[in-house]
Protein backbone atom coordinates (compact mmCIF):
# COMPACT_ATOMS: atom_id res chain seq x y z
CA UNK A 1 0.00 0.00 0.00
CA UNK A 2 1.32 3.46 -0.86
CA UNK A 3 1.61 6.45 1.42
CA UNK A 4 -0.89 9.26 0.89
CA UNK A 5 0.14 11.56 3.75
CA UNK A 6 3.56 11.82 5.27
CA UNK A 7 4.85 13.94 8.13
CA UNK A 8 8.62 13.95 8.35
CA UNK A 9 10.17 15.11 11.63
CA UNK A 10 7.58 17.85 12.04
CA UNK A 11 8.53 20.37 14.71
CA UNK A 12 6.48 23.34 15.86
CA UNK A 13 7.39 25.71 18.68
CA UNK A 14 5.28 28.44 20.27
CA UNK A 15 7.87 30.63 21.97
CA UNK A 16 9.54 28.37 24.55
CA UNK A 17 6.94 25.61 24.20
CA UNK A 18 7.62 22.80 21.78
CA UNK A 19 4.13 21.74 20.66
CA UNK A 20 5.40 19.14 18.19
CA UNK A 21 8.85 17.60 18.45
CA UNK A 22 10.09 15.74 15.37
CA UNK A 23 6.79 13.93 14.83
CA UNK A 24 6.82 11.55 11.88
CA UNK A 25 3.77 9.77 10.52
CA UNK A 26 2.97 7.80 7.41
CA UNK A 27 -0.69 7.41 6.50
CA UNK A 28 -1.46 4.77 3.91
CA UNK A 29 -4.04 5.19 1.15
CA UNK A 30 -7.47 3.92 2.13
CA UNK A 31 -6.86 3.50 5.85
CA UNK A 32 -8.46 5.08 8.90
CA UNK A 33 -5.65 6.46 10.98
CA UNK A 34 -6.31 7.56 14.56
CA UNK A 35 -4.36 10.08 16.60
CA UNK A 36 -4.89 10.06 20.35
CA UNK A 37 -3.26 11.64 23.36
CA UNK A 38 -4.10 13.68 26.45
CA UNK A 39 -5.07 17.36 26.30
CA UNK A 40 -2.21 19.54 25.09
CA UNK A 41 -0.35 16.66 23.50
CA UNK A 42 -0.25 18.39 20.10
CA UNK A 43 -3.00 16.55 18.20
CA UNK A 44 -4.85 19.61 16.90
CA UNK A 45 -1.57 21.42 16.28
CA UNK A 46 -0.54 18.51 14.08
CA UNK A 47 -3.76 18.82 12.07
CA UNK A 48 -3.19 22.57 11.78
CA UNK A 49 0.31 21.94 10.48
CA UNK A 50 -0.93 19.36 7.96
CA UNK A 51 -3.62 21.73 6.68
CA UNK A 52 -1.22 24.66 6.63
CA UNK A 53 -3.08 26.85 9.11
CA UNK A 54 0.08 26.83 11.22
CA UNK A 55 3.52 27.04 9.63
CA UNK A 56 5.91 24.39 10.91
CA UNK A 57 9.42 25.27 12.07
CA UNK A 58 11.14 22.14 10.84
CA UNK A 59 10.23 19.05 8.87
CA UNK A 60 8.12 18.33 5.79
CA UNK A 61 4.54 17.45 4.89
CA UNK A 62 4.01 15.20 1.89
CA UNK A 63 0.75 14.49 0.07
CA UNK A 64 0.88 11.66 -2.43
CA UNK A 65 4.66 12.05 -2.47
CA UNK A 66 4.50 15.78 -3.20
CA UNK A 67 6.06 18.23 -0.76
CA UNK A 68 3.24 20.57 0.29
CA UNK A 69 5.04 22.18 3.24
CA UNK A 70 5.05 25.64 1.69
CA UNK A 71 1.56 25.57 0.21
CA UNK A 72 -1.20 27.75 1.61
CA UNK A 73 -4.22 26.10 3.30
CA UNK A 74 -6.62 26.71 0.40
CA UNK A 75 -4.09 25.24 -2.02
CA UNK A 76 -3.88 22.10 0.10
CA UNK A 77 -7.68 21.79 0.05
CA UNK A 78 -7.59 21.84 -3.73
CA UNK A 79 -5.02 19.06 -3.70
CA UNK A 80 -7.39 16.88 -1.69
CA UNK A 81 -6.98 17.60 2.04
CA UNK A 82 -10.32 18.26 3.76
CA UNK A 83 -10.77 19.11 7.41
CA UNK A 84 -13.46 18.87 10.08
CA UNK A 85 -12.61 21.34 12.82
CA UNK A 86 -12.83 20.85 16.56
CA UNK A 87 -15.97 22.29 18.13
CA UNK A 88 -18.37 22.31 15.16
CA UNK A 89 -17.13 25.31 13.21
CA UNK A 90 -19.45 26.59 10.51
CA UNK A 91 -20.34 29.98 9.04
CA UNK A 92 -23.23 30.73 11.39
CA UNK A 93 -24.94 33.44 9.34
CA UNK A 94 -24.79 31.75 5.94
CA UNK A 95 -27.46 29.19 5.01
CA UNK A 96 -26.51 25.52 5.18
CA UNK A 97 -26.25 25.15 1.40
CA UNK A 98 -23.91 28.15 1.15
CA UNK A 99 -21.66 26.72 3.85
CA UNK A 100 -21.12 23.82 1.48
CA UNK A 101 -21.41 25.56 -1.88
CA UNK A 102 -18.70 28.13 -1.12
CA UNK A 103 -16.24 25.30 -0.62
CA UNK A 104 -17.35 23.76 -3.91
CA UNK A 105 -17.05 27.10 -5.74
CA UNK A 106 -13.53 27.58 -4.40
CA UNK A 107 -12.46 24.17 -5.58
CA UNK A 108 -14.27 23.66 -8.87
CA UNK A 109 -14.80 27.21 -10.06
CA UNK A 110 -17.60 26.07 -12.36
CA UNK A 111 -20.98 27.10 -10.91
CA UNK A 112 -22.99 24.17 -12.27
CA UNK A 113 -20.51 21.57 -11.10
CA UNK A 114 -20.26 23.25 -7.70
CA UNK A 115 -24.04 23.26 -7.29
CA UNK A 116 -24.37 19.66 -8.41
CA UNK A 117 -21.68 18.58 -5.95
CA UNK A 118 -23.34 20.61 -3.20
CA UNK A 119 -26.71 18.94 -3.79
CA UNK A 120 -25.02 15.55 -3.71
CA UNK A 121 -23.08 16.30 -0.51
CA UNK A 122 -26.19 17.62 1.25
CA UNK A 123 -28.16 14.56 0.17
CA UNK A 124 -25.46 12.18 1.39
CA UNK A 125 -25.30 13.88 4.77
CA UNK A 126 -29.10 14.08 5.11
CA UNK A 127 -29.18 17.87 5.14
CA UNK A 128 -31.18 18.61 2.01
CA UNK A 129 -34.36 19.47 4.00
CA UNK A 130 -32.40 22.02 6.05
CA UNK A 131 -30.47 23.45 3.08
CA UNK A 132 -32.03 26.91 3.39
CA UNK A 133 -31.77 27.11 7.19
CA UNK A 134 -29.13 28.98 9.12
CA UNK A 135 -26.72 26.63 10.95
CA UNK A 136 -27.59 28.20 14.32
CA UNK A 137 -30.93 26.36 14.07
CA UNK A 138 -29.30 22.96 13.64
CA UNK A 139 -28.78 20.32 16.33
CA UNK A 140 -25.18 19.34 17.22
CA UNK A 141 -25.54 16.20 15.10
CA UNK A 142 -26.80 18.15 12.10
CA UNK A 143 -23.91 20.59 12.54
CA UNK A 144 -21.52 17.66 12.39
CA UNK A 145 -23.30 16.49 9.26
CA UNK A 146 -22.86 19.95 7.80
CA UNK A 147 -19.15 19.70 8.43
CA UNK A 148 -19.21 16.25 6.86
CA UNK A 149 -21.02 17.61 3.81
CA UNK A 150 -18.33 20.28 3.52
CA UNK A 151 -15.73 17.53 3.44
CA UNK A 152 -17.63 15.43 0.90
CA UNK A 153 -18.18 18.31 -1.49
CA UNK A 154 -14.44 18.79 -1.91
CA UNK A 155 -14.05 15.17 -3.11
CA UNK A 156 -11.00 14.72 -0.85
CA UNK A 157 -8.18 12.22 -1.00
CA UNK A 158 -7.81 12.48 2.73
CA UNK A 159 -10.15 13.83 5.41
CA UNK A 160 -8.85 15.07 8.75
CA UNK A 161 -11.51 14.88 11.47
CA UNK A 162 -10.87 16.65 14.77
CA UNK A 163 -13.03 15.03 17.47
CA UNK A 164 -15.94 14.05 15.19
CA UNK A 165 -17.78 12.25 18.02
CA UNK A 166 -17.68 15.13 20.52
CA UNK A 167 -21.17 16.26 21.55
CA UNK A 168 -22.95 13.36 19.86
CA UNK A 169 -25.32 10.86 21.51
CA UNK A 170 -24.38 7.16 21.22
CA UNK A 171 -26.87 6.69 18.36
CA UNK A 172 -25.53 9.73 16.53
CA UNK A 173 -21.97 8.51 17.05
CA UNK A 174 -22.96 5.20 15.48
CA UNK A 175 -24.39 7.04 12.49
CA UNK A 176 -21.13 8.98 12.18
CA UNK A 177 -19.17 5.72 12.28
CA UNK A 178 -21.40 4.42 9.51
CA UNK A 179 -20.68 7.48 7.34
CA UNK A 180 -16.95 7.29 7.92
CA UNK A 181 -16.92 3.59 7.04
CA UNK A 182 -19.05 4.20 3.97
CA UNK A 183 -16.79 6.87 2.50
CA UNK A 184 -13.68 5.02 3.55
CA UNK A 185 -14.93 2.07 1.50
CA UNK A 186 -15.34 4.48 -1.41
CA UNK A 187 -11.65 5.38 -1.21
CA UNK A 188 -11.41 8.34 1.21
CA UNK A 189 -8.55 8.06 3.68
CA UNK A 190 -9.32 9.35 7.18
CA UNK A 191 -7.12 10.77 9.91
CA UNK A 192 -9.16 11.08 13.08
CA UNK A 193 -8.18 12.88 16.27
CA UNK A 194 -10.48 11.71 19.06
CA UNK A 195 -10.80 11.52 22.83
CA UNK A 196 -13.63 8.97 22.77
CA UNK A 197 -11.46 5.92 22.31
CA UNK A 198 -14.38 3.47 22.38
CA UNK A 199 -15.49 4.79 19.00
CA UNK A 200 -12.09 5.44 17.46
CA UNK A 201 -10.62 2.06 18.35
CA UNK A 202 -13.51 0.33 16.56
CA UNK A 203 -12.85 1.94 13.22
CA UNK A 204 -9.14 2.82 13.15
CA UNK A 205 -6.77 0.55 11.26
CA UNK A 206 -3.78 2.12 13.01
CA UNK A 207 -3.33 4.60 15.83
CA UNK A 208 -0.54 7.00 16.84
CA UNK A 209 -0.23 8.33 20.37
CA UNK A 210 1.11 11.80 21.10
CA UNK A 211 2.25 13.06 24.48
CA UNK A 212 3.70 16.53 25.05
CA UNK A 213 4.40 16.92 21.34
CA UNK A 214 6.21 13.59 20.97
CA UNK A 215 4.94 10.45 19.27
CA UNK A 216 5.24 7.75 21.91
CA UNK A 217 3.53 4.86 20.15
CA UNK A 218 2.07 3.74 16.82
CA UNK A 219 0.42 0.55 15.68
CA UNK A 220 -2.79 -1.43 15.62
CA UNK A 221 -5.37 -0.25 18.19
CA UNK A 222 -5.26 -3.50 20.17
CA UNK A 223 -1.46 -3.25 20.44
CA UNK A 224 -1.39 0.43 21.30
CA UNK A 225 -3.78 0.10 24.26
CA UNK A 226 -1.45 -2.49 25.78
CA UNK A 227 1.64 -0.30 25.35
CA UNK A 228 3.03 0.50 28.87
CA UNK A 229 3.97 4.05 27.86
CA UNK A 230 0.44 4.71 26.62
CA UNK A 231 -1.09 3.26 29.79
CA UNK A 232 1.17 5.48 31.88
CA UNK A 233 0.16 8.59 29.92
CA UNK A 234 -3.55 7.87 30.18
CA UNK A 235 -3.76 6.34 33.66
CA UNK A 236 -0.63 7.63 35.34
CA UNK A 237 0.53 4.07 36.12
CA UNK A 238 2.58 1.52 34.20
Amino acid at each position, binding site marked *: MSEILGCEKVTKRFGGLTALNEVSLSVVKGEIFGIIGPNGSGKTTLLNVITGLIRLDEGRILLDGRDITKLKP*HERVKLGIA*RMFQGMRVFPYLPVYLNVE*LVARSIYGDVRLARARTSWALTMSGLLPEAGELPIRLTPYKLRMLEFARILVSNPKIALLDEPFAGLTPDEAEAMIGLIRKFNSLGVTFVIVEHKLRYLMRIANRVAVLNQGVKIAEGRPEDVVRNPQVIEVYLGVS
Partner: protein
Amino acid sequence: MVFAKRSAKDLIVGKIPFLIALAVLTLLPLLNVGGFWLDVLTKVNLFLLVTLAIDLYSGTTYYLNLGVSFTFGFAGYSLALLNVYYGIPTEYSMLLAIPISIFFSLAILLPSLKIRGVYFAILSLLVPIIFIGIVTAQPFSLYLGGEGGLRFKQLFLDFARSLPPGIRLTFLQYSYYYISLAAAVVGYVIAYKIGFSDFGFMLRAVGQDEELAEGTGINTLKVKVIGFLISSAYASVAGALYASMRPPVTVDLVVPANTLIPPLTSVIVGGLGTLIGPAIANYLLLLTYELLWGLIGRWRVIAYMLLLIIIITIKPQGIVFKAYVEARKFLRGVFSE
Protein backbone atom coordinates in the same frame (compact mmCIF):
# COMPACT_ATOMS: atom_id res chain seq x y z
CA MET B 1 -30.63 25.10 -6.68
CA VAL B 2 -34.31 25.49 -5.98
CA PHE B 3 -33.85 26.68 -2.42
CA ALA B 4 -31.47 29.41 -3.53
CA LYS B 5 -34.06 31.14 -5.66
CA ARG B 6 -36.52 33.74 -4.47
CA SER B 7 -40.19 33.59 -5.37
CA ALA B 8 -41.74 35.97 -7.88
CA LYS B 9 -43.69 37.58 -5.02
CA ASP B 10 -40.45 38.21 -3.12
CA LEU B 11 -38.93 39.85 -6.17
CA ILE B 12 -41.96 42.07 -6.69
CA VAL B 13 -42.17 43.04 -3.03
CA GLY B 14 -38.43 43.67 -3.01
CA LYS B 15 -38.47 45.85 -6.10
CA ILE B 16 -41.55 47.99 -5.46
CA PRO B 17 -40.04 50.13 -2.67
CA PHE B 18 -36.86 50.50 -4.74
CA LEU B 19 -38.78 51.66 -7.80
CA ILE B 20 -40.90 54.07 -5.75
CA ALA B 21 -37.80 55.59 -4.16
CA LEU B 22 -36.18 55.88 -7.58
CA ALA B 23 -39.27 57.57 -9.04
CA VAL B 24 -39.41 60.06 -6.15
CA LEU B 25 -35.72 60.90 -6.45
CA THR B 26 -35.99 61.26 -10.23
CA LEU B 27 -39.01 63.55 -10.10
CA LEU B 28 -37.86 65.57 -7.10
CA PRO B 29 -36.10 68.35 -9.09
CA LEU B 30 -39.31 68.88 -11.08
CA LEU B 31 -41.16 69.64 -7.84
CA ASN B 32 -39.10 72.81 -7.43
CA VAL B 33 -37.38 71.70 -4.23
CA GLY B 34 -34.89 74.55 -4.46
CA GLY B 35 -31.19 74.80 -5.12
CA PHE B 36 -30.16 74.14 -1.52
CA TRP B 37 -31.96 70.82 -1.28
CA LEU B 38 -30.80 69.81 -4.73
CA ASP B 39 -27.21 70.37 -3.55
CA VAL B 40 -27.90 68.43 -0.36
CA LEU B 41 -29.43 65.52 -2.29
CA THR B 42 -26.49 65.51 -4.71
CA LYS B 43 -24.15 65.16 -1.75
CA VAL B 44 -26.32 62.46 -0.17
CA ASN B 45 -26.41 60.50 -3.46
CA LEU B 46 -22.62 60.58 -3.64
CA PHE B 47 -22.27 59.68 0.02
CA LEU B 48 -24.36 56.60 -0.73
CA LEU B 49 -21.37 55.34 -2.71
CA VAL B 50 -19.12 55.83 0.33
CA THR B 51 -21.69 54.09 2.53
CA LEU B 52 -21.73 51.18 0.09
CA ALA B 53 -17.91 51.19 -0.01
CA ILE B 54 -17.84 50.69 3.75
CA ASP B 55 -20.71 48.20 3.86
CA LEU B 56 -19.43 46.04 0.99
CA TYR B 57 -16.05 45.49 2.63
CA SER B 58 -16.21 46.32 6.33
CA GLY B 59 -19.86 45.28 6.72
CA THR B 60 -19.12 41.81 5.38
CA THR B 61 -15.54 41.03 6.41
CA TYR B 62 -15.62 43.06 9.66
CA TYR B 63 -12.28 44.59 8.67
CA LEU B 64 -13.22 48.14 9.61
CA ASN B 65 -11.60 50.35 7.00
CA LEU B 66 -11.45 53.82 8.52
CA GLY B 67 -9.23 54.99 5.67
CA VAL B 68 -12.15 55.40 3.25
CA SER B 69 -11.90 59.18 3.66
CA PHE B 70 -8.31 58.97 2.38
CA THR B 71 -9.41 57.22 -0.82
CA PHE B 72 -12.31 59.66 -1.22
CA GLY B 73 -10.05 62.68 -0.76
CA PHE B 74 -7.19 61.25 -2.79
CA ALA B 75 -9.49 60.97 -5.80
CA GLY B 76 -10.34 64.65 -5.37
CA TYR B 77 -6.70 65.68 -5.12
CA SER B 78 -5.74 63.51 -8.11
CA LEU B 79 -8.41 65.24 -10.18
CA ALA B 80 -7.23 68.68 -9.09
CA LEU B 81 -3.55 67.93 -9.71
CA LEU B 82 -4.24 66.55 -13.18
CA ASN B 83 -6.31 69.60 -13.99
CA VAL B 84 -4.07 72.26 -12.48
CA TYR B 85 -0.61 70.92 -13.37
CA TYR B 86 -1.28 68.95 -16.55
CA GLY B 87 -4.15 71.00 -17.96
CA ILE B 88 -6.41 67.98 -18.38
CA PRO B 89 -10.06 69.10 -18.43
CA THR B 90 -12.06 68.28 -15.32
CA GLU B 91 -14.29 65.84 -17.22
CA TYR B 92 -11.27 63.68 -18.14
CA SER B 93 -9.15 64.22 -15.05
CA MET B 94 -12.15 63.04 -13.03
CA LEU B 95 -12.10 59.73 -14.91
CA LEU B 96 -8.33 59.38 -14.57
CA ALA B 97 -8.45 60.18 -10.87
CA ILE B 98 -10.53 57.07 -10.14
CA PRO B 99 -7.93 54.38 -11.01
CA ILE B 100 -5.17 56.51 -9.49
CA SER B 101 -7.03 56.71 -6.20
CA ILE B 102 -7.84 52.99 -6.26
CA PHE B 103 -4.14 52.26 -6.74
CA PHE B 104 -3.08 54.51 -3.88
CA SER B 105 -5.69 52.96 -1.58
CA LEU B 106 -3.21 50.08 -1.45
CA ALA B 107 -1.36 52.33 1.00
CA ILE B 108 -4.01 51.23 3.48
CA LEU B 109 -4.25 47.60 2.41
CA LEU B 110 -0.67 46.48 1.91
CA PRO B 111 0.69 47.27 5.40
CA SER B 112 -2.39 45.73 6.96
CA LEU B 113 -2.57 42.37 5.18
CA LYS B 114 -1.25 40.45 8.17
CA ILE B 115 -3.20 42.22 10.88
CA ARG B 116 -6.80 41.88 11.96
CA GLY B 117 -9.53 43.45 14.03
CA VAL B 118 -8.90 46.67 15.89
CA TYR B 119 -5.30 46.88 14.63
CA PHE B 120 -6.51 47.06 11.03
CA ALA B 121 -8.99 49.79 11.97
CA ILE B 122 -6.32 51.88 13.71
CA LEU B 123 -3.81 51.45 10.91
CA SER B 124 -6.38 52.41 8.28
CA LEU B 125 -7.27 55.55 10.25
CA LEU B 126 -3.64 56.64 10.34
CA VAL B 127 -3.40 56.88 6.55
CA PRO B 128 -5.81 59.84 6.08
CA ILE B 129 -4.21 61.58 9.05
CA ILE B 130 -0.76 61.20 7.48
CA PHE B 131 -2.18 62.49 4.19
CA ILE B 132 -3.64 65.56 5.89
CA GLY B 133 -0.21 66.18 7.41
CA ILE B 134 1.42 65.93 3.96
CA VAL B 135 -1.08 68.28 2.32
CA THR B 136 -0.70 70.97 4.98
CA ALA B 137 3.08 70.75 5.50
CA GLN B 138 5.72 72.44 3.37
CA PRO B 139 6.99 71.80 0.77
CA PHE B 140 3.95 69.71 -0.28
CA SER B 141 1.47 72.41 0.71
CA LEU B 142 2.99 74.67 -1.98
CA TYR B 143 1.86 72.22 -4.65
CA LEU B 144 -1.26 70.86 -2.97
CA GLY B 145 -2.69 74.24 -1.97
CA GLY B 146 -2.25 73.83 1.77
CA GLU B 147 -5.34 74.52 3.85
CA GLY B 148 -6.77 76.81 1.17
CA GLY B 149 -6.93 73.93 -1.28
CA LEU B 150 -6.50 73.63 -5.04
CA ARG B 151 -8.81 75.61 -7.32
CA PHE B 152 -9.91 74.32 -10.71
CA LYS B 153 -12.81 74.61 -13.12
CA GLN B 154 -15.78 72.66 -11.88
CA LEU B 155 -17.47 70.02 -14.00
CA PHE B 156 -19.30 71.31 -17.12
CA LEU B 157 -18.44 74.94 -16.28
CA ASP B 158 -17.25 75.75 -19.79
CA PHE B 159 -20.48 74.39 -21.26
CA ALA B 160 -22.57 76.23 -18.67
CA ARG B 161 -20.93 79.51 -19.66
CA SER B 162 -22.22 79.04 -23.19
CA LEU B 163 -25.78 79.03 -21.81
CA PRO B 164 -27.88 82.12 -21.02
CA PRO B 165 -26.88 83.55 -17.60
CA GLY B 166 -30.30 82.85 -16.08
CA ILE B 167 -30.07 79.09 -16.41
CA ARG B 168 -26.35 78.45 -15.87
CA LEU B 169 -26.63 77.68 -12.18
CA THR B 170 -29.81 75.67 -12.68
CA PHE B 171 -28.12 73.63 -15.41
CA LEU B 172 -25.15 72.84 -13.17
CA GLN B 173 -27.34 71.93 -10.19
CA TYR B 174 -29.65 69.71 -12.23
CA SER B 175 -26.87 67.99 -14.16
CA TYR B 176 -24.90 67.35 -10.95
CA TYR B 177 -27.98 65.99 -9.26
CA TYR B 178 -28.84 63.56 -12.07
CA ILE B 179 -25.22 62.43 -12.42
CA SER B 180 -25.07 61.75 -8.69
CA LEU B 181 -28.42 59.95 -8.82
CA ALA B 182 -27.30 57.80 -11.75
CA ALA B 183 -24.06 56.98 -9.90
CA ALA B 184 -26.03 56.12 -6.76
CA VAL B 185 -28.50 53.84 -8.59
CA VAL B 186 -25.87 52.07 -10.68
CA GLY B 187 -23.61 51.84 -7.63
CA TYR B 188 -26.35 50.32 -5.51
CA VAL B 189 -27.39 47.77 -8.16
CA ILE B 190 -23.77 46.66 -8.67
CA ALA B 191 -23.15 46.54 -4.91
CA TYR B 192 -26.25 44.40 -4.46
CA LYS B 193 -25.14 42.02 -7.23
CA ILE B 194 -21.68 41.74 -5.67
CA GLY B 195 -22.88 41.56 -2.06
CA PHE B 196 -25.21 38.64 -2.76
CA SER B 197 -23.03 36.82 -5.28
CA ASP B 198 -20.78 33.88 -4.41
CA PHE B 199 -17.95 36.38 -4.07
CA GLY B 200 -20.02 38.45 -1.66
CA PHE B 201 -20.74 35.36 0.41
CA MET B 202 -17.03 34.59 0.45
CA LEU B 203 -16.46 38.05 1.91
CA ARG B 204 -19.05 37.22 4.57
CA ALA B 205 -17.40 33.85 5.21
CA VAL B 206 -14.10 35.67 5.84
CA GLY B 207 -15.89 37.94 8.30
CA GLN B 208 -17.58 35.09 10.15
CA ASP B 209 -14.54 32.82 10.50
CA GLU B 210 -11.46 33.63 8.46
CA GLU B 211 -9.49 30.59 9.58
CA LEU B 212 -12.36 28.28 8.70
CA ALA B 213 -12.74 29.98 5.32
CA GLU B 214 -9.05 29.49 4.51
CA GLY B 215 -9.09 25.94 5.89
CA THR B 216 -12.03 24.94 3.71
CA GLY B 217 -10.52 26.15 0.46
CA ILE B 218 -11.32 29.84 0.14
CA ASN B 219 -8.35 31.97 -0.90
CA THR B 220 -8.98 34.54 1.81
CA LEU B 221 -6.14 36.84 0.79
CA LYS B 222 -7.46 37.10 -2.76
CA VAL B 223 -11.02 37.64 -1.53
CA LYS B 224 -9.91 40.40 0.86
CA VAL B 225 -7.78 42.19 -1.74
CA ILE B 226 -10.49 42.12 -4.42
CA GLY B 227 -13.14 43.18 -1.89
CA PHE B 228 -10.97 46.03 -0.70
CA LEU B 229 -10.30 47.24 -4.25
CA ILE B 230 -14.01 47.15 -5.10
CA SER B 231 -14.67 49.18 -1.97
CA SER B 232 -11.92 51.62 -2.97
CA ALA B 233 -13.46 51.94 -6.42
CA TYR B 234 -16.71 53.10 -4.81
CA ALA B 235 -14.93 55.63 -2.59
CA SER B 236 -12.84 56.84 -5.55
CA VAL B 237 -15.83 57.37 -7.85
CA ALA B 238 -17.62 59.22 -5.05
CA GLY B 239 -14.56 61.35 -4.29
CA ALA B 240 -13.84 62.22 -7.92
CA LEU B 241 -17.46 63.17 -8.65
CA TYR B 242 -17.85 65.11 -5.41
CA ALA B 243 -14.64 67.08 -5.95
CA SER B 244 -15.46 67.79 -9.60
CA MET B 245 -18.71 69.44 -8.53
CA ARG B 246 -17.39 71.40 -5.54
CA PRO B 247 -14.00 73.02 -6.09
CA PRO B 248 -11.64 73.84 -4.49
CA VAL B 249 -10.27 70.55 -3.24
CA THR B 250 -9.20 70.94 0.38
CA VAL B 251 -8.22 68.69 3.26
CA ASP B 252 -11.87 68.77 4.31
CA LEU B 253 -12.36 65.95 1.81
CA VAL B 254 -9.96 63.74 3.75
CA VAL B 255 -10.96 64.67 7.31
CA PRO B 256 -12.70 61.56 8.72
CA ALA B 257 -15.29 63.67 10.55
CA ASN B 258 -16.53 64.96 7.18
CA THR B 259 -16.32 62.02 4.82
CA LEU B 260 -16.04 58.95 7.06
CA ILE B 261 -18.29 59.45 10.08
CA PRO B 262 -21.56 60.17 8.18
CA PRO B 263 -21.40 57.06 5.95
CA LEU B 264 -20.01 54.95 8.78
CA THR B 265 -22.95 55.83 11.02
CA SER B 266 -25.28 55.02 8.12
CA VAL B 267 -23.73 51.56 7.93
CA ILE B 268 -24.04 50.98 11.67
CA VAL B 269 -27.57 52.35 12.02
CA GLY B 270 -28.59 50.65 8.77
CA GLY B 271 -27.33 47.18 9.70
CA LEU B 272 -23.88 45.89 8.80
CA GLY B 273 -23.59 43.98 5.55
CA THR B 274 -27.24 44.34 4.56
CA LEU B 275 -26.63 47.04 1.88
CA ILE B 276 -30.28 48.12 1.72
CA GLY B 277 -30.29 49.10 5.42
CA PRO B 278 -27.23 51.38 5.17
CA ALA B 279 -28.53 52.76 1.85
CA ILE B 280 -31.84 53.82 3.40
CA ALA B 281 -30.06 55.06 6.54
CA ASN B 282 -27.77 57.17 4.34
CA TYR B 283 -30.75 59.16 3.07
CA LEU B 284 -32.62 59.25 6.38
CA LEU B 285 -29.67 60.35 8.51
CA LEU B 286 -28.07 62.86 6.18
CA LEU B 287 -31.38 64.50 5.27
CA THR B 288 -32.35 64.61 8.96
CA TYR B 289 -29.04 66.31 9.69
CA GLU B 290 -29.78 69.01 7.12
CA LEU B 291 -33.38 69.39 8.32
CA LEU B 292 -32.13 69.97 11.86
CA TRP B 293 -30.18 73.00 10.63
CA GLY B 294 -33.41 74.78 9.82
CA LEU B 295 -34.97 73.77 13.13
CA ILE B 296 -32.24 74.27 15.72
CA GLY B 297 -29.26 75.78 13.89
CA ARG B 298 -25.86 74.97 15.34
CA TRP B 299 -27.39 72.79 18.06
CA ARG B 300 -28.01 70.23 15.34
CA VAL B 301 -24.59 68.62 15.80
CA ILE B 302 -25.30 67.88 19.46
CA ALA B 303 -28.89 66.78 18.80
CA TYR B 304 -27.87 64.59 15.87
CA MET B 305 -25.03 62.91 17.72
CA LEU B 306 -27.24 62.29 20.78
CA LEU B 307 -29.84 60.74 18.48
CA LEU B 308 -27.20 58.47 16.98
CA ILE B 309 -25.91 57.48 20.43
CA ILE B 310 -29.45 56.56 21.51
CA ILE B 311 -30.13 54.52 18.35
CA ILE B 312 -26.81 52.70 18.48
CA THR B 313 -27.18 52.01 22.22
CA ILE B 314 -30.69 50.60 21.85
CA LYS B 315 -30.04 48.66 18.63
CA PRO B 316 -26.28 48.20 18.14
CA GLN B 317 -26.94 45.72 15.31
CA GLY B 318 -28.78 48.37 13.31
CA ILE B 319 -32.36 49.51 13.20
CA VAL B 320 -33.16 50.39 9.58
CA PHE B 321 -32.73 46.93 8.06
CA LYS B 322 -35.05 45.42 10.68
CA ALA B 323 -37.65 48.08 9.95
CA TYR B 324 -37.24 47.35 6.24
CA VAL B 325 -37.78 43.61 6.81
CA GLU B 326 -40.95 44.35 8.80
CA ALA B 327 -42.19 46.64 6.03
CA ARG B 328 -41.59 43.90 3.49
CA LYS B 329 -43.53 41.43 5.62
CA PHE B 330 -46.38 43.89 5.71
CA LEU B 331 -46.23 44.36 1.93
CA ARG B 332 -46.15 40.62 1.38
CA GLY B 333 -49.25 40.33 3.54
CA VAL B 334 -50.99 42.99 1.45
CA PHE B 335 -50.11 41.11 -1.75
CA SER B 336 -51.37 37.82 -0.33
CA GLU B 337 -54.80 39.23 0.38
